[in-house]
């Protein structure tokens, strides 16, 4: 195994992605991700200094819509699909430790 990615980084990435993982999973993922990154290292040999990143498969610009109201979704239908709702709103457990 090379050391392209460490277990500590994997654990941090899992926190960023809000995926709870066990120590075993971190270990397994570290091996798998490391293996993949090794495969993907073939592009490291390319000289890309003069290459413009490609972000759009079909180049379009200024795609706009008129500022006109259209019908909304039905609140009851939407809230019925929610895991929890109260007073016309989505209910979630307390929001702690994540003030923005």
């Amino acid at each position: 195994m090379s050391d392209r990615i460490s277990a500590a980084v994997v654990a941090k990435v899992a926190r960023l992605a809000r995926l709870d993982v066990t120590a075993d999973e971190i270990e397994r993922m570290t091996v798998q991700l490391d293996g993949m990154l090794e495969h993907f290292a073939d592009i490291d040999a390319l000289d890309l200094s003069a290459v413009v990143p490609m972000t759009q498969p079909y180049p379009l610009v200024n795609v706009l819509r008129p500022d006109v109201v259209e019908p909304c979704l039905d609140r009851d239908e939407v809230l019925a699909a929610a895991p929890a709702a109260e007073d016309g709103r989505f209910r979630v457990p307390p929001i702690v430790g994540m003030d923005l």
Partner: protein
Amino acid sequence: MTTAFDIAAAVRAGTTTATELLAQHLATIAERDPDIHAFNHVMVEQAQAQAAAVDATAALGDDPGPLAGVTVALKDNMCTRGVPTTCSSKILEGWRPPYDATVVDKLRAAGAVAIGKTNLDEFAMGSSTENSAFGPTRNPHDLSRVPGGSSGGSAAAVAAGFSHVSLGSDTGGSIRQPAALCGVVGVKPTYGYVSRYGLVAFASSLDQIGPFTSNVADAALVLDVIGGHDPHDSTSIPQQHPSLVDVLGQGVEGLRVGRITDLPPGADPDVEERLEAAFEALAAAGATIVPVQVPAFTFGLSAYYLIAPAEASSNLARYDGVRYGLRVEAADTNAMYGVTRAAGFGDEVKRRIMLGTYALSAGYYDAYYGKALKVRRLIHDDFERAYHQADVLLTPTSPSVAFPFGAKGDNPFAMYLCDTYTIPTNLAGHPGMSVPYGTGAHGLPVGVQVLAGTLQEPTMFRVAAALERSLA
């Protein structure tokens, strides 16, 4: 009467009814789908109502549309109002969207009858449909083998005769590869040709919807219906596409068919053999075979597996247990996110979310995601150069015929190699399609891939139709 063309004509003429056709398909599904598991959900009531509406229109002497009475199976990552849309994931199990995808609207307006939602690799991540949270789909040609993926259910539905046509989505080969493995036609149009509105996103800059059909003409017919500009999709190409049905008979005389001389190796000999046969058939039909090079083709896999997971990590962040789908309760919201997502996503999805999150994160962006975007440009530009020399390119669709369940073991990369020949097209944004071209090992279907430049679908379809004719 086997083609959607004939069926629509018969329904419009009143010689058969949509209701009758639907009943036949529902019977076939009831009989064989328990073995194949192409469907996550069969829309019996909605389909019957839709068929009745088509018949009523025809009975009044009005035109129900170009797909009158044609049954369509929809990959279960396309939103259907009031009908479960799961992406074959536990995190969306039971979710009923409050809106229809644009393609669903267009199909319905054309008189098609949506018959059900088909199985897929969870969130379209995979090449075998083994990653479905609801169990795999089996290949109708050999139940011990995979149908390919991720649109395995849609490919199997057409191959098994469960529906006349079906829709899939193709991010790195997810239409073309299962089409090849199931012996049907599968098309990935130019990026922006078909609206993505209502298609649950995997990788937004790569995803395209396209048809599975039993023949090339039907694919043209379906694309003529579902293609075109949609104001709800900012990346939808704002123009009317020329009819593909109209070009099918034009032949290939004078067309230049490119053979990629630096194609990455890895295709099985039986697949190579069928590809050679295809080149010969096109040459015999009047096309010129020209050698071309696409040097960056080989880097497609690496670029794709950095770009697609990066976009996916962001696209799949919305499954947070707040507004829809699964929630596992916890003491606070942040904890709820972690346990919900851990319980709701399968291993492959988690792996890609991890990979993508990593590729975008501070300190790694330039080394991975940023670099992959540049490689994407190289691939695109190499293809563009090749299309100056050739009108279409011919490659294998899949390196092998359908493989047995579990054949790729625990090594994710082995599965990724299934998409070696399909991925670069998605990166370039170009169209590609798989055409069944005989059989290989174990008598299983082999597909040949026809690739073309941006919006060159008409040329691509001319070549596909010629290949099909050469087998007749």
